[in-house]
């Protein structure tokens, strides 16, 4: 295959232009968000007219601030972790150390399939679950915090499984030999040697999965988020969440103040997911230094 002579410098310039365009697009995104959002940061962004200290303790309801949405997102993330992390880590250990042959191939396929399901379909699954419950045993079933957390847990489960599996499989061989050489069985070797050694990188995977759950909007849109629920009342109640607040303010803001709150919410959510990302990568970086045997 031959190209005309001018194709090579053109290709070089094209690649440079791509990299430059990417940087420009991101700079534009951050610049625009900071320009419009920086002025909104402050206690009134979170608590509106209410007294911050009393609102923080849930003594007074916050009508025009982000505090209920922050609380909703935090409780959603906590509940999601509670449901997904133990199952995800256990399944990852099982796939890395125990499963073999066709069973392993099938289970890996299942995890990959779960990872490829679009988040809106996962939300729809939760929605059909409620319709099914209403028709059968629970006529009063409705979308709620617990359902949203369950669907989010399914959404991030494959990330947790593959993070655990990868970090166990990438441990150096010398570490693997310690267990048998001490006369430990497989289970004990995993619990006392391999899992502690890979704990940091599993934790990094968990943090990335939390970030993924924090940003997802499509799942909660179908499973019980509403615009003005106040602080989450319980597992069976409706709730607010930051990503949904951003979406609904962009779609139907009434006043310039509400739009400002949208910019503030976008900055808060970006700060949350960005710091989770940076934290996970710092953990990974320290780990790579520690196990740098065969890079």
């Amino acid at each position, binding site marked *: 295959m031959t190209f005309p002579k001018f194709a090579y410098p053109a290709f070089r310039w094209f690649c440079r232009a791509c990299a430059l365009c990417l940087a420009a697009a991101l700079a*534009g995104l951050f610049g625009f968000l900071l320009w419009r959002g920086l002025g909104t940061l402050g206690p009134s962004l979170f608590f509106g007219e209410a007294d911050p200290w009393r609102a923080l303790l849930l003594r007074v309801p916050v009508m025009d601030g982000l505090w209920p949405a922050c609380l909703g997102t935090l409780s959603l993330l906590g509940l999601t972790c509670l449901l997904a992390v133990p199952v995800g880590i256990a399944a990852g250990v099982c796939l890395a150390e125990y499963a073999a042959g066709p069973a392993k191939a099938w289970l890996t396929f299942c995890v990959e399939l779960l990872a490829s399901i*679009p988040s809106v*379909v996962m939300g729809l699954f939760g929605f*059909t679950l409620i319709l099914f419950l209403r028709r059968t045993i629970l006529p009063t079933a409705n979308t709620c915090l617990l359902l949203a957390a369950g669907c989010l847990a399914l959404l991030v489960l494959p990330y947790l499984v593959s993070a655990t599996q990868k970090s166990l499989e990438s441990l150096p061989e010398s570490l693997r030999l310690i267990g048998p050489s001490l006369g430990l069985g497989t289970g004990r070797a995993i619990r006392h040697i391999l899992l502690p050694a890979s704990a940091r990188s599993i934790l990094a995977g968990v943090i990335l999965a939390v970030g993924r759950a924090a940003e997802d909007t499509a799942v909660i849109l179908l499973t019980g988020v509403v615009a003005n629920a106040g602080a989450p009342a319980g597992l069976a109640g409706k709730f607010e969440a930051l990503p949904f607040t951003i*979406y609904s303010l962009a779609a139907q803001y009434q006043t310039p103040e509400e739009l400002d709150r949208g910019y503030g919410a976008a900055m808060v959510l970006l700060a949350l997911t*960005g710091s989770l990302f940076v934290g996970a990568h710092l953990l990974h970086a320290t780990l790579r230094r520690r196990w740098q045997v065969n890079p």
Partner: protein
Amino acid sequence: MGEDGVCRNENRLVQATWLGALYGSTGLCALAVAAVFAFLLYFAAPVFWADNAGSVLSLAWRPLDGSFGILSMAAASLALAVSAMLVAMPAGIGICCFTCGLGPPMAARLVLGLVRFMTSIPTVVYGFVSVFALTPIIQAVFRGSSGFCWLTAGLTLSLLVLPTVVLLLEGPLRDAWEHTALAASALGLDASRTLLHVALPRARRSIAAAAVLGFSRAIGDTLIALMLAGNAPQLPLSPLDSIRTLTAHIALVVSTESGSRAYNSLFAAGLLLLGAATAVNLILRRLLRKTA
């Protein structure tokens, strides 16, 4: 466990609990996948087998006249995803070539760091910024357009899928580059000739995999289309048309509670998306297995 035979000090109860927890959790993952498929099939099957099956598989979405066709939305999903990939693929390949040899090392590392960081930017933030920054530009450039159209959504979506493409392609392309760069430069090839004639052809399977994975991200995305594409259920004929994707349709019907007759189209849309995800997954397995 055969290897555990040597180990007499392990408590039987502990061992049973441990194995039970591990296999139980793995089984739960498999069960979850089965449940998602089972529930969507259970709710969608009557839609396709009913007497008015043609109703869902038609172009017209006019709930008041009783026609609940979703084919125009399927076409819109496809058009939006393909157009986003048409921008993201060349840009992704260009960025990978920049980071794998064309760009100065410092700049390459910076660009790669930026792309990694992009994975942590929430979709809804992309959507929000585009609503207030990109749509006014589109409005100003194309007079008479509302700005909420295929073009706006496609541009934003291509930015969203870019990290997926770049991060999947970067590793294999770097491998190909490092394997061949010395021999190629000994033959007198410069960096861009090495990339175009040697490294990129070597990594073509990974390019295909990146395209397929990016496409599945693009077609499964909800928020960009919902916030930016305008959501009018019609065929995508011009880049300035307002379109509604399957994903946005699901979100809209659920959040506006259009009544149970419109729900049928919901399950059909969900099943189509699930089918697309499964197909993509099978293609991806074939592509990635042969590179390994």
